């Protein structure tokens, strides 16, 4: 396998090992697996062998000579260990010694099923044939000196056409958003220009001027709808530019995030409110007053749908719609937080602040991994699907590679200078493209190795037809995740609730506003002929008062009497046995 990698590669100065992977060949895998087989698949392999030997023997016995041809590839096709590991979910649970039959069966069957699922998934991994792209300079050439024009010239026509500029100098700096499939681009100029484009075919879907300040633009679940945070309210338009809703509950919105699996549009406003809008039913799910001032830094964790907010006091807070206080608050910077982004797996968070630092956090442990100093500071950050970090420093966009590792980076992978200040950065999903919104319009920049090469056609299919989109929409709505399930740990649902009954009851009462188990208060009947006088009523009440306590008291009294009795008996026995005095003989 090593021989297949050309030696020239190893001598280049760019981080070649990670970049260039030779295409997979079937013989490599088989070699690998053959080597590993004795260790990994001992069980099955050995079993297979045993079976075959037994067969052979029996045949020999019968005919005196082996007639059977030996299958050179006997048994199931082996699965490489790496792929298997990729699809492993949790650790295998062994049947405890002395377990009951039913338990044993349950565990064994579930383990078998999960193993089957893992194996099948690993097998089907074969159907992801695309590899990620990469950029590689000559000797003594930094990749960040390669200009976009050169790349566009060198690449094939379709890839080259992905580098383009839209000169829109009139309506100020642009915010942008790519749809989930990566085909549709939404740009919103500060001065009211909103346009949505099928950027690959350069087909303009709609273009308009909302005649108001536009703070942010966001696609909703499909390319049929998008939200625009305007000067006062939040507006929702369809792809033709028709105004569908003006949501007046959401005012002064500065930033928005859309949680695709929950159908939630999260907005952060200038008044310090974090609000959640369920776009499937059009209801406000939660409105949280963060009490942190103006919220103009926002990001979402795609792993667990938690919203990250950056604040002027250098902290970053994590929010879910279910809690009125931040789940976590981290002090990241000495100055205000300027931008933050979270990677696809929800493991890393990258932040930049006014103290001109770039920090990488492990947000599972809330620990900083490393930080570096950017002389101009980063005003915008964005992480690609494959972990390339782009940072807008002044009018230059820098792209860093291997930021998410434990070692800090020293120089950028790519750089691109633009005119005017950068206002929005976003990677296009499933494409090696970085969209940059700036003062002079929009630039689509080619960043080799940025996008995930394989897409899930049932989830986000860039080539889907309108019919497929409709079908997907229905399915997605059916599989919509409820907002109650948002929390730091997305696997919480699969765990047993360990809280005690009292605690749960208390929470239940709090949620309901009354105690469903509480007894009605005793109300004495009104009786006639003077029997319903105040005193009589009081007497009757006293009869049933403290019923539960009475029960307890009765029980304890009974227990005590019994205990006393026993003790007495014991003492009597003792007396009878031990304390025989001389006078006892006179007793009758």
């Amino acid at each position, binding site marked *: 396998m090593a021989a297949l990698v050309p030696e020239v590669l190893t001598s280049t100065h760019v981080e070649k090992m990670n970049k260039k992977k030779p295409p997979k060949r079937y013989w490599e895998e088989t070699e690998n697996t053959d080597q590993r087989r004795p260790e990994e698949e001992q069980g099955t392999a050995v079993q297979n062998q045993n079976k075959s030997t037994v067969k052979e023997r029996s045949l020999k016995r019968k005919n005196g000579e082996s007639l059977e041809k030996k299958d050179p590839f006997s048994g199931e096709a082996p699965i490489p260990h790496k792929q298997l590991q990729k699809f492993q979910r949790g650790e295998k*649970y062994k049947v405890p010694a002395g377990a009951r039959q039913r338990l044993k069966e349950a565990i064994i069957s579930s383990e078998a099923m999960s193993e089957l699922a893992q194996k099948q998934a690993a097998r089907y991994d074969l159907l992801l044939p695309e590899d990620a792209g990469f950029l590689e300079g000559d000797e003594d050439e930094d990749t960040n000196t390669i200009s976009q024009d050169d790349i566009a010239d060198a690449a094939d026509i379709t890839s080259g056409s992905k580098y383009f500029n839209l000169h829109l100098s009139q309506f100020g700096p642009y915010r942008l958003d790519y749809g989930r499939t990566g085909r549709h681009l939404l740009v919103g100029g500060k001065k009211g220009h909103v346009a949505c484009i099928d950027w690959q075919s350069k087909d303009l879907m709609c273009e308009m001027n909302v005649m108001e300040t536009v703070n942010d633009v966001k696609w909703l679940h499909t390319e049929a709808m998008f939200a625009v945070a305007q000067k006062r309210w939040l507006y929702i338009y369809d792809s033709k530019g028709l105004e569908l809703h003006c949501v007046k509950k959401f005012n002064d919105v500065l930033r928005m995030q859309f949680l695709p699996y929950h159908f939630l549009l999260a907005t952060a406003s200038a008044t310090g409110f974090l609000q959640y809008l369920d776009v499937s039913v059009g209801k406000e799910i939660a409105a949280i007053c963060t009490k942190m001032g103006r919220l103009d830094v926002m990001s979402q964790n795609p792993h667990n749908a938690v919203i990250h907010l950056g604040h002027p006091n250098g902290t970053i807070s994590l929010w879910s719609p279910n809690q009125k206080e931040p789940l976590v608050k981290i002090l990241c*910077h000495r100055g205000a937080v300027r931008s933050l982004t979270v990677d696809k797996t929800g493991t890393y968070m990258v932040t930049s602040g006014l103290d001109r630092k770039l920090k990488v956090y492990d947000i599972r442990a*809330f620990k900083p991994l490393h930080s570096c*100093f950017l002389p101009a*500071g980063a*005003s915008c950050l964005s992480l690609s699907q494959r972990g390339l970090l782009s940072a807008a420093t002044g009018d230059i966009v820098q792209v860093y590679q291997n930021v998410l590792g434990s070692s800090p980076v*020293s120089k950028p992978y790519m750089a691109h200078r633009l005119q005017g200040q950068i206002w929005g950065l976003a990677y296009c999903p499933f494409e090696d493209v970085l969209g940059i919104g700036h*003062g*002079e319009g929009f630039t689509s920049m080619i960043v080799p190795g940025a996008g995930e090469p394989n897409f899930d056609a049932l989830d986000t299919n860039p080539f889907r037809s309108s019919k497929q989109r409709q079908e997907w929409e229905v399915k997605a709505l059916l599989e919509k995740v409820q907002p109650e399930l948002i929390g730091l740990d997305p696997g919480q649902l699969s765990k047993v609730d360990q809280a005690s009954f009292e605690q749960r009851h208390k929470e239940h009462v709090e949620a309901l506003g009354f105690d469903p188990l509480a007894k009605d208060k005793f109300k004495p009947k009104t009786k006639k002929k003077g029997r319903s006088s105040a005193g009589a009523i009081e007497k009757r009440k006293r009869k049933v008062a403290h019923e539960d306590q009475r029960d307890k008291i009765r029980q304890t009294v009974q227990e005590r009497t019994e205990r006393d009795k026993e003790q007495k008996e014991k003492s009597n026995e003792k007396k009878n046995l031990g304390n025989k005095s001389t006078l006892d003989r006179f007793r009758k």
Partner: protein
Amino acid sequence: MVKPSSLQKTLSKGVKLTSAMAVESGDEDDLSINEQAISASEDEEGSDDERKHKKLLEAISSMGGRKRKKQSERSEASVQVSEFFVNAEGTGEKVNISDLLGTVEKTSGAANKTKKQLRNLQNSKGTLALPLNKQQTEKIQRGIAYEKTTKEVSCWQNIIVQNQKAEQIVFPLNQESLGPKQVEQVVAGWKAQTPLEQEIFRLLHSNSHPVNDPVLTPVEEASLKAMSLEEAKIRRAELQKTRALQSYYEAKAKREKNIKSKKYHKIQKKGKRKEFLKQFEEMVKTNPEGALEELKKMELSRMEERMSLKHQNSGKWAKSKAIMAKYDDSARKAMQEQLQMNKDLTQKIVVPSDDEHESNEEGLETVPDFVNDPEPIIDPVNPWMRVQLTHEEPEVSCVTTDEPQTAEQENEEEELIGEFERKRKLRQADEEDLIPTEEQKPESEVVEEDVVEVSDKEEEEEEEDEEEEDVSEFNTLFRLMRNEKTLEEDEEGLLNEGQIRVRNIEDLEILDEDVDPQPIVDHGEQISIIKEAFAGDDVISDFIKDKRKQEAAGKPKVVDLTLPGWGEWGGVGLKPSRWKRKRFRIKMASSPPRQDRKLPDTIISENRNTSIASHQVSQLPFPFQNTAQFESCIRTPIGQTWNTQGVVKKMTKPKVITKLGAIIAPMVKEDFINKTTTSAGKGPAIMLGENKRANKGREWSSAKHQGRRGSQKRKKQQT
């Protein structure tokens, strides 16, 4: 003295005993008793048992050919017989067997067997045990019955467990396989009943005829099945294809029929003609005979055309069109087309093998066709002239006639585009005039080579937004702070985990800037400004305070139940005494340690997420003993998003499937017993006529038969 009554008693006791024994011995005796009862009921429908018995005895005795024995009258052995009292004489005395024997031997009527029995009794010394009392016998009987039923029921145990454990059960349980059945399978349930059938089967068996052999070997069967399936598939596919093709064709024909566009039909015809020509050319090469025939056909059509006045602008329609043609372009075109058609049809067919002079002749022949044409008009603007032009070159097909039009259209388009461009240029010029503020971008920034240059286009100077200004301001402040106060860096130790300076273009820029002495005017002043700016921004201490507050809120509080004045003096300035505080201040249990106790710059909320609790499992389900077991069992998701299709189907397989509309009959014992035997592979190949069940049935019936016979015997003995 002999007392026959007592004898009877003993006998009846003996019978009773045997009947009790019968229960133990099993089926046969039971059956025999039953048989007895049945036979009795069959014989007579009398009321009294004894009388019946007597009659029976009489009948039996009469059957015997010997002389009739006189029935000995039974009488009470007492001296005085009175109807008013029963004589109880001799009650205290015991009956000796010897007494009985003596009398029996004297009497000739007694059976030999009874004599024997009596003799045996006499020989045996031991006394008979008392029969068990009713309760005990019933208990024993119950016990036996219980055992029997448990044995009977326990054979179901296996199948029940098996079904409980099965991942999936499909009801009805024994579904018959679809498709044709073999004769043996059909006949399996049928058995030979009539003597003729039996005879035949006996013969077959004795001749060792291959009755047991199935008609087809399993391999053959399998191949047959496969063949049939494949064939069926192929046939189905064919059928589908033909059906689809038919439907397509029909749809197409219908659609084309509905098309009213003349142009379409024209094009269609043209296409057909072209194709035909092509084919014809090929035919000439490959199949000259066919080509000849085609030629003849064409000739015929030409003749017809020449004979008729069709397409000669002489019809009613053509005349009306001629009137319109002056004003209407389309009418003109239509007329032209008709003429063209005429031209084409009357044109003599060129056979490539023909000589040149023939073609010349042809040219001559075409001349008279001009007669049919409208008279040429001298006016050059007149569209009719165009017709003439086409006439001059008759080889040109319809496409060429269309060409000038399209060319015209193109010209128009070009004109339009040109106009647009002109307008656009004008507009641009205007704009350029309006915006005089354009200027070249200063090149001063482009010091470094490694910056990717953007194309050198004109650029507007951009007014910076407020925030960006702020940012730049902050940046300069920070830079100053870095220069001046290195002390602050120590404080930052809390936040910074290894600073690394990024070495890149911007660094160079900043270095350049740093070298420039201009920004630093007066250090003292600026530092004071910075301090002002960051007066309220002591971020770290604020955060620490916040964290302390949170921690304090999370800690359990001491509940103070002291009441002032109870047990001592109360009033302003008086504190409750120590013992009282100790007695009435309740300390709560300490809460578990905070999650963020080791993270100084993080506050993690300790609130429980109650919203998810309602969706969680709160009680451990049955077979699991701890949560780890349960959680590991549900750790694999079953959704389509995470699994392959096959696995999803397997995981979400329903436990029970019922066939729609099928009757689900209760399980029959034979079904699963048979199944187990056949599954074990011990069952023989199909036996014609007699299957296992039938065999069993016969055995059973024969046993029954024997039982009946046995019981009859016993009856005889009793009599």
